[in-house]
């Protein structure tokens, strides 16, 4: 009879359970989708490195299981409170608590299983969309057939069981602690006060703000210095920020209230008092979960931001490191002692080059040298931290080689007069290049005076210089009697290179490099196809995992806020009825409600947005060098916040509408 009643209850209270089911479906659809994709053979076979995706997703899933467990526990508590009176009635009628508990658990399991099965199908759909995106990334034609293997299903089922074991256990505990009286009168429970002394609480608020500022400063310091021994800074910073997030959530409500109470003009204008008081009560009772929400939003914003930055960094990295299909480096050098004179290496280099000539259809090629006269006429201006390359002296490139290299990239060549020089560098030496331009000094090479034409950070490829972050382009005829820093050979092949080409060329052998007595092997070829695959794999793994986290977090945050607000709608109907009785028009009540919901939704996002913007500035310090020139961290963080707010906004609107319906329904009854 118990199971009958449970099934009947599920059927008839489906409307009340809609939030619960949607929550579970959304969460598990995402879990399914991400697992399907990460375990999909097609995706794993795209590149050697892609197998790591599943490990990354499993790792991330550990965090996700915790967060989802928390979410479902929360939803269950909401349902429990909503039905407390019903349970009380059962108890009055003489059903034992144990049985009622079983009934509730049974209902939850039935609903959970239904949701789990639905999410399986939505998961397949979503998984197909995700894998289409990944395939697109690898520029592969996409077939709509994500093969469903057993393992991801089993894993998702395992997560499901873990989450439900935890939540059902919590729910049982909750039920055990309840007395009939509590159950019957739960709705009438009052909000409790945590901070009794006002003075203390205001001081605390200021302390928490200071902690936040210090935390952010330490975080920035860490990214500025970026050394292993500053790890402790990051750790302290994270701890401070977490405390500060929770602390501010607890105390801000009071702080604002205090501020408003003292100013009668604000206090008594319109419905401010009602909204603020309501909010104060909220931040006291649910401060803890609001704090957790703020924390999740912060993490979500940082993860999403990182995901975008990483994507750009990896894409840019390919162009930086492998601008041409094949690049052979270190063919000869006058200055690089570790392989100077090593005939073996030179021979090997030509073996590669000959092999390429014989086996590939070459579209374009260039053999060129990077030269030096060991002077410091230009390099003295470069003072950017961490940007002095392998050599501290000036390195030169002939303008004809430079233009050819540009041409091979499909970029317009530059026009350099006989008495001019041109400096090109990457983003790490941006400051240095500015300094060079400001100084506008002439340089003298082989008694010839050259004036500065211009500097640029565009089009510079690490592959050209193998060492410095900048290079000086000079007229062809001034480079007599210079030492060769390194000699390179670049090819553009007719067909795109692939990972397999790497394997083929690797068979020819390696350079042997002597370094302080040790001989190490070095593969001097950069093959674009291989780099691309590696970069895309790494990018997919990082971005995918980070996006996974942010999607789940945003779902969690949105759902919990909706639930909180909606459970208020039940508790607050008395207040709204009272307002109506006091003569407030319905239109104005709706306005008040909207204000309340807006306050609820806005409150946990403001501080995280501040933290996210500041940390994105700090994170930019290390990603600055590797992201593309067009990448602006401020734009990225605002896009991130924008995406977040759009999804968040959907939750907000849905909540507003449901809340309004609830209240209208109540008053029309």
């Amino acid at each position, binding site marked *: 009879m118990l199971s009958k009643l449970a099934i*009947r209850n599920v059927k008839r209270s489906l409307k009340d359970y809609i939030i619960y089911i949607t929550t579970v479906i959304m969460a598990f659809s995402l879990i399914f989708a991400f697992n399907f994709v990460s375990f999909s053979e097609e995706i794993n076979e795209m590149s050697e490195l892609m197998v790591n995706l599943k490990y990354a997703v499993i790792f991330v899933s550990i965090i996700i299981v915790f967060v989802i467990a928390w979410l479902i526990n929360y939803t269950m508590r909401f349902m429990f409170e909503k039905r407390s*009176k019903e349970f*009380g*009635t059962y108890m009055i*009628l*003489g*059903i*034992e608590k*144990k049985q009622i508990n079983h009934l509730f658990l049974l209902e939850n399991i039935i609903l959970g299983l239904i949701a789990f099965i639905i999410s399986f199908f939505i998961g397949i759909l979503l998984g197909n969309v995700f894998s289409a995106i990944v395939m697109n990334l690898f520029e592969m034609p996409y077939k709509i057939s994500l093969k469903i293997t057993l393992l991801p299903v089993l894993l998702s089922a395992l997560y499901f069981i873990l989450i439900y074991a935890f939540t059902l256990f919590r729910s049982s505990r909750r039920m055990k602690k309840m007395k009939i*009286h509590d159950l019957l009168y739960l709705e009438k429970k009052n909000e409790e006060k945590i901070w009794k002394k006002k003075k203390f609480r205001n001081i605390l608020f200021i302390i928490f703000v200071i902690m936040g500022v210090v935390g952010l400063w330490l975080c920035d310091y860490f990214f500025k210095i970026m050394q292993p021994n500053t790890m402790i800074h990051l750790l302290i910073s994270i701890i401070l920020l977490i405390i500060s997030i929770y602390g501010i959530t607890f105390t801000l409500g009071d702080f604002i209230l205090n501020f408003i109470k003292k100013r009668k003009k604000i206090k008594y204008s319109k419905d401010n008092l009602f909204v603020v008081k309501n909010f104060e009560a909220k931040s006291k009772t649910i401060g803890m979960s609001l704090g957790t929400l703020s924390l999740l939003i912060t993490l979500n914003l940082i993860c999403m931001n990182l995901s975008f930055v990483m994507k750009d960094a990896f894409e840019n990295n390919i162009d930086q490191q492998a601008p041409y299909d094949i690049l052979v480096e270190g063919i000869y050098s006058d200055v690089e002692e570790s392989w100077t004179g090593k005939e073996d290496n030179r021979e090997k280099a030509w073996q590669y080059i000959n092999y390429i000539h014989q086996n590939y259809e070459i579209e374009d090629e260039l053999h060129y040298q990077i030269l030096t006269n060991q002077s410091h006429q230009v390099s003295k201006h470069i003072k950017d931290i961490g940007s002095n390359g392998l050599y501290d002296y000036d390195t030169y490139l002939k303008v004809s080689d430079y233009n050819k290299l540009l041409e091979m990239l499909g970029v317009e060549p530059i026009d350099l007069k006989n008495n001019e020089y041109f400096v090109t560098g990457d983003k790490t030496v941006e400051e240095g290049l500015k300094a060079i331009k400001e100084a506008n000094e002439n340089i003298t090479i082989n008694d010839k005076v050259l004036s500065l034409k211009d500097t640029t950070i565009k089009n510079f490829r690490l592959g050209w210089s193998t060492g410095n972050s900048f290079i000086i382009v000079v007229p062809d005829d001034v480079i007599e009697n210079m030492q060769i820093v390194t000699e390179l050979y670049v090819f553009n092949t007719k067909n795109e290179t692939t990972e397999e080409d790497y394997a083929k060329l690797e068979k020819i052998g390696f350079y042997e490099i002597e370094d302080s007595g040790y001989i190490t092997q070095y593969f001097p070829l950069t093959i674009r196809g291989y780099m691309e695959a590696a970069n895309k794999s790494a990018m997919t793994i990082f971005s995918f995992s980070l996006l996974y986290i942010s999607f789940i977090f945003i779902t969690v945050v949105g759902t919990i806020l909706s639930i909180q607000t909606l459970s208020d709608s039940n508790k607050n109907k008395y207040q709204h009825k009272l307002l109506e009785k006091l003569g407030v028009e319905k239109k104005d009540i709706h306005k008040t409600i909207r204000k309340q919901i807006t306050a609820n939704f806005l409150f946990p996002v403001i501080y995280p947005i501040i933290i996210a913007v500041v940390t994105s500035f700090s994170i930019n310090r290390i990603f600055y060098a590797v992201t593309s020139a067009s990448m602006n961290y401020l734009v990225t963080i605002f896009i991130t916040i924008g995406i977040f707010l759009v999804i968040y906004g959907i939750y907000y609107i849905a909540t507003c509408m449901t809340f309004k319906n609830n209240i209208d329904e109540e008053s029309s009854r």
Partner: protein
Amino acid sequence: MEILKLENVKKYYGSEKNITKAVNDLSLKIEEGEFVAIMGASGSGKTTLLNCISTIDEVTAGHIYIGNKDITELKENELAKFRRENLGFIFQDFNLLNTLTISENISLALIINKEDVNEVDNKVKDIASKLGISDILNKYPYEVSGGQKQRCACARALINKPKLILADEPTGALDSKSSRMLLETMDEMNEKLNATILMVTHDSFSASFCGRVLFLKDGKIFNEIVKGEKTRKEFFNEILDVLTLLGGDVGNVK
């Protein structure tokens, strides 16, 4: 035979500094077949007392015997069994389950007691016809009127033939016509089915249907009157007299 006996029952709320003595050293007895009302102003401890008797709340001190069993000594599972076998409840806000139809709500108590399945329908029909709700059996609680809901709650409370029916302001949410109908029903339940009913109310009209009225003040029994051979009208006036006295101590008027 005594159905209910309270011995020095105390129920205190609050912290050490600020104690509310909701029920303060109260003793009383109720015989089988009695229809007793407890009256008193708000805050006099009526509902708390009823909650203690109905095992919804625990007493701070003292003993409550229902049919010779001390319910203050029972454990939680024993209490559940005890409630289901001995007590029937009627609440101000009905406490019907919205997911069940009226007939299912009534039969719930039987199902829980694991009565013979074939008997359930007959018993429900029987009690429903006695209370005049036969035609709404297949409706849901939200589809019927407040009076009908409360009669459904009565049926649910009665169907098990409990030793004691506890009613907390049963007419509180009803209009006067429904109130009268309900009270007449309860009167019939008391007379024809010999149900023992303990009702908390602050409404003199409701109380005038009972055989005995206890007046509570500050957690203690302040006065007690019995209907005896009086007409309802006379009894009603008597109740009003006591209430006037109860409403203000002579000492309070200056």
